């Protein structure tokens, strides 16, 4: 029997993010429901892993949580407030930060300037926290390794005021050791900084380090751990 989550019910305060009976289908194929009545709550201070086969809708789920897209029905809420009232751009700016598999850094900006896109905090301490030296912080991002670029992306996410970090295959392009280091950064972001970290992943190692694991199955979220 699949178990539908309602983690928010046990939370002492509104969950950082909530999915409330969300349904989603691509406009080009409206009958094929990628998400079909998915509900879940994501709390601060917890790292979540969302797993499932390719094409099951994991990235779509992340996009809906991040305000990059809107559901066909149901709603997404941040701190208890539906995104329709918050505004998608404001939600992206204030409530969530993304970490993508492909890093998605702006190539003509230095690591420090990439971080400055998302925060007014000094960039160098944030970059040092994820292991980027001051010297590397002023180089072109294209001169950094993949692991370093992902660290910059995480620093950019950590630099924002967002309480939720949404990570799409954050270790997908990294070697084993680097992936382990990046996973450690995400765990620390949840446990030490009290962020809500939601990572969509195929990596068993990353899922193993998450506090809670959901599987996306037939358009719904099922808690595995």
């Amino acid at each position, binding site marked *: 029997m699949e178990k539908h989550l309602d983690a928010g019910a046990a939370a002492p305060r509104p969950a950082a993010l909530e999915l409330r009976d969300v349904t989603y289908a691509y406009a080009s194929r409206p009958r094929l429901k990628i998400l079909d009545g998915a509900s879940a709550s994501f709390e601060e201070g917890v790292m979540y892993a969302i797993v499932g086969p390719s094409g099951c809708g994991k990235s779509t789920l992340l996009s809906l949580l991040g305000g990059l897209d809107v559901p066909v029905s149901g709603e997404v809420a941040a701190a208890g407030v539906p995104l329709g009232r918050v505004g998608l*751009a404001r939600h*992206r700016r204030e409530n969530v930060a993304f970490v993508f598999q492909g890093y*998605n850094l702006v190539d003509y900006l230095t690591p420090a300037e990439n971080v400055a*896109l998302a925060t007014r905090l000094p960039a160098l301490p944030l970059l040092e926290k994820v292991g980027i030296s001051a010297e590397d912080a002023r180089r072109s991002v294209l001169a950094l390794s993949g692991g370093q670029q992902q660290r910059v992306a995480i620093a950019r996410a950590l630099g924002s005021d967002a309480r939720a970090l949404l990570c799409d295959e954050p270790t997908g392009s990294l070697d084993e050791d680097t992936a382990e280091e990046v996973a450690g950064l995400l765990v620390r972001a949840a446990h030490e900084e009290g962020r809500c970290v939601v990572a969509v992943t195929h990596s068993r190692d990353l899922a193993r380090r998450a506090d809670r694991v959901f599987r996306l199955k037939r358009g719904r979220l099922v808690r595995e751990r």
Partner: protein
Amino acid sequence: MPFPRRALLYLVRKRGKTLTLLALLLVVAVLALTGWSIRGAAQTAQLNVRQALGGTFTVEPDSSNAANWGSSSVGTGSQVTFQGEPLTADFVREVVEGVDGVRGGSGSVSNVLIPETEDGSEALELVEGADGDSSLAAGFAGDDFGRTVQFFAVSDSSFDSHFANGYLRLVDGEPVTEGSGDGVLVSREFAERNGLAVGDGFSVRRATVHAQMAGIDVEDTRTQVRVAGIFEPTAKSQADLASWSMDNAIFGTISTLDHAREGTAEAGYDRVTFQVDDPAELGRIVGEVENLDALAGKGYRVSADTSDVDAVSAPLENMDRLVTALAAASVAVGAVVLYLVLSGRVRDRLHESGVLLSLGLTRASVVGQYLCEVLLVAAVAFALAVPASSLAARTMGGALLGSASESVQTGGGDGGVSTADGVSTVSGDPFAPTFEVDGASFTDIEVEVGPTSVAALFGVGLAVSAAAVLLASLPLRRMGPREILSTLS
């Protein structure tokens, strides 16, 4: 990070793309500004030509109708005179005051007289060097007719065609009007040769042969005159006799000429030439003048020939059309190329746009950055285009205007104009001096990039650039950030 800073960082770090865009905008701006400036110069040249040549019409007795004319005996000879009312200064005033758009006019009648000292003891020295018919001059060598000069009796020298068309320029003293009495205008060289200044006097009389033909004593025709003003020819003049050149001409009143040649005042002016404010209004003005009571049915002919203007203006108008078409084409092609290039740039940066949107930046901020980049580059390109266009416009414009003005020549007795093929379009007194004016004097226009053109370049150029960016950004505005990121991932 504010979008202007992002824009600056992009421009500095993506130098290749920045320089490509700068070069494109610079080429378009230089073409447009150069074309615009040459067009402006060509239009100024046309305006000058019209103002110099086109705004005149002439009223004179209709010589084609024999009924208007009668013959009378004078001394041993006879003369044909107009039988209608004479053309007078009053008639000039009536036309100027009665018809809108007529700036002024002057009656004119000329004859040949001999200038001498006040007491007639010595002939005044004439200016030599003007071309003339040497065989004709030799025929008059033994007679004082060879010392005659052209005397123009005018009602207002300011509006006499020689002065109004710019062939002569008053450099000292006052113009001569009917109220000037014994006042005359002489050329600077004539005055210098004879030690004459404004206020000095000398005398004029008829040639002996003319006095004998009229049966009068030549001394009875002597008239004292006073220098009221001094003029300078702006063009080389030519006459059948060298002494009849404009350097020796005297402009005075009809009363002075009448004293030397009795009956001139009674016969009135041979013709009256009027200047109008706007050559384009010439047709209407001539129509109104022909219907004036002073003229209607009284044997006068009003002629307003604009073929001289057309002949001179045609090459300039052709060049104007050509340059306008080139300038318009360069702007149109430039705008299309700019749009295509900017579209490509925005398409290439869709992923970046998606990243920025995913970070919470608004579409306005993203488009604002692209707009800022293009406008900054455009402003630099347009600033560089000003000196570049100035140089190009002077070089190309000088060559084009020079070529257009090569077909412009002037000539004719009273400031008439002839085309390059030598066909005279305005006939004048066959004995009066003619002019050889450098055609470039009409079209000697400084081709320069004026502040209006620069302002237009910045205004239109920045608007076109902004429109191209906004059009090119349409896909960005239509697509959501996830769509952008998923499309490119």
